[in-house]
């Protein structure tokens, strides 16, 4: 069947088109070149492998095109990606790159693909082409691109990614430790407490703000249960399911599921409409909690200047100040490295 050969040829052309656009990380450019070389090798060797193998690989290559096409340097929400990169680095040591997709609807997801594992194994072990970069795709609403306080939802999505990548909840299910909850609900609870490791109580405010008092459905637990679960985790209350999640996380990742944030003092600089100086990664993540607190607590906004703005403008300005604070931290860090 020549169709598989043709498909790989078409994918190769798609990949070659992507070379025209700049990426923030040089590794992505190298990865792209390696994929193109791999396509060439597959085409040269055709029909050495069975058609089903070509089909298997072309499906995986399509995914790679999808992951790479939406993440050029102009589109990426740089500040949010920088924070997620730090969090990801706590768990995942494989060479990786966060790629982004901006959605026209209100939705968030974090996507990894088993297809990449297949490509990596086949390219490295059979074609002898080094493919060592894991592409991870984050998707967020385009309208929220510059609203980091909304985008803390991506920490929750990162939790899903870590769960799937290391099979944490699958290990919990294998050991029948799910306390009778459905697989979907377990995954949501895990992603919530993972997010709270970095953004603490901001997760609770975000849940209340975005989901109100939603009842449980097939995919998600009720907001009330989610809030209780995260509260138990943050307060260190004894909860058998949380204990099992911590244990499974430890076995699969060899990392501890614990809080990793520290609150920076933002009142003074924010009241002067200045970004805050962030001292370390813990404060970088804690900035989101401080930002939500600043918005929720009008007494924190002591300077009269705030009274000239309506609530929407205040929300926008606080988000801007958070973005600038993150950007300054990343620039100083790069300068010092």
């Amino acid at each position, binding site marked *: 069947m020549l169709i598989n050969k043709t498909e790989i040829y078409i994918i190769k052309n798609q990949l070659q088109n992507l070379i025209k656009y700049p990426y923030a990380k040089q590794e992505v450019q190298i990865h792209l070149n390696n994929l193109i070389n791999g396509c060439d090798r597959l085409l040269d060797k055709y029909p050495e*492998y*069975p058609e*089903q*193998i070509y*089909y*298997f690989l072309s*499906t995986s290559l399509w995914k790679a095109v999808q992951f790479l096409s939406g993440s050029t340097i102009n589109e990426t929400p740089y500040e949010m990606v920088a924070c997620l990169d730090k969090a990801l680095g706590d768990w995942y040591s494989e060479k990786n790159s966060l790629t982004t997709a901006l959605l026209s609807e209100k939705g968030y997801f974090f996507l990894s*693909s*088993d*297809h990449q*594992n*297949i490509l990596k*194994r*086949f390219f*490295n*072990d*059979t074609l002898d082409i080094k493919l060592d970069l894991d592409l991870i795709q984050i998707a967020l609403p385009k309208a929220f691109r510059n609203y980091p306080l909304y985008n803390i939802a991506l920490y929750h999505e990162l939790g899903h990614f870590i769960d799937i*990548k*290391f*099979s944490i909840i*699958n*290990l919990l*299910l*294998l*050991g029948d430790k799910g306390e009778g909850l459905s697989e979907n609900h377990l995954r949501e609870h895990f992603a919530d407490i993972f997010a709270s490791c970095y953004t603490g109580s901001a997760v609770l405010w975000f849940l209340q703000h975005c989901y109100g008092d939603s009842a449980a459905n097939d995919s998600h637990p009720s907001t009330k249960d989610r809030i209780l679960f995260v509260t138990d985790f943050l307060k260190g209350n004894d909860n058998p399911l949380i204990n099992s999640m911590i244990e499974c996380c430890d*076995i*699969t990742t060899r990392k501890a599921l614990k809080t990793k944030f520290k609150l920076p003092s933002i009142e003074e600089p924010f009241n002067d409409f200045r970004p805050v100086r962030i001292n370390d990664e813990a404060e970088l993540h804690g900035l989101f909690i401080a930002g939500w607190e600043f918005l929720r607590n009008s007494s924190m906004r002591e300077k009269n200047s705030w009274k000239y703005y309506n609530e929407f403008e205040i929300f926008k300005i606080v988000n801007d100040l958070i973005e600038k604070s993150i950007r300054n931290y990343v620039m100083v860090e790069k300068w010092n490295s």
Partner: protein
Amino acid sequence: MIASNMLNSHMSGNFQLALLMKLQKTSTSQKIEDYFDQLVHQVNLLLENADLSKERIIPEAIDLALKIKKTKPLNKAFSSLSKYNEISEKDAQQLIDILRDHAD
């Protein structure tokens, strides 16, 4: 096609790829064979509830063990597996068929 159905399941991709290569008599590298053997070893440990504290667990082994636990025919077919180079084409075909029939 077998491959398209198999790829509907995001789990156990390398396990299935290795079986497919066995079935199609495609020459495999030693690395793929070693990975397969380690995977099978770890799945068996997980299914036996063995102490895993000293193992670096392959996530695919957890996914596969869970799938085997939930899927009786797969449990039976998997129990006869040992080394990659000892798998017959008939066994590989049987496993592929079961995985296809029970794709998530």
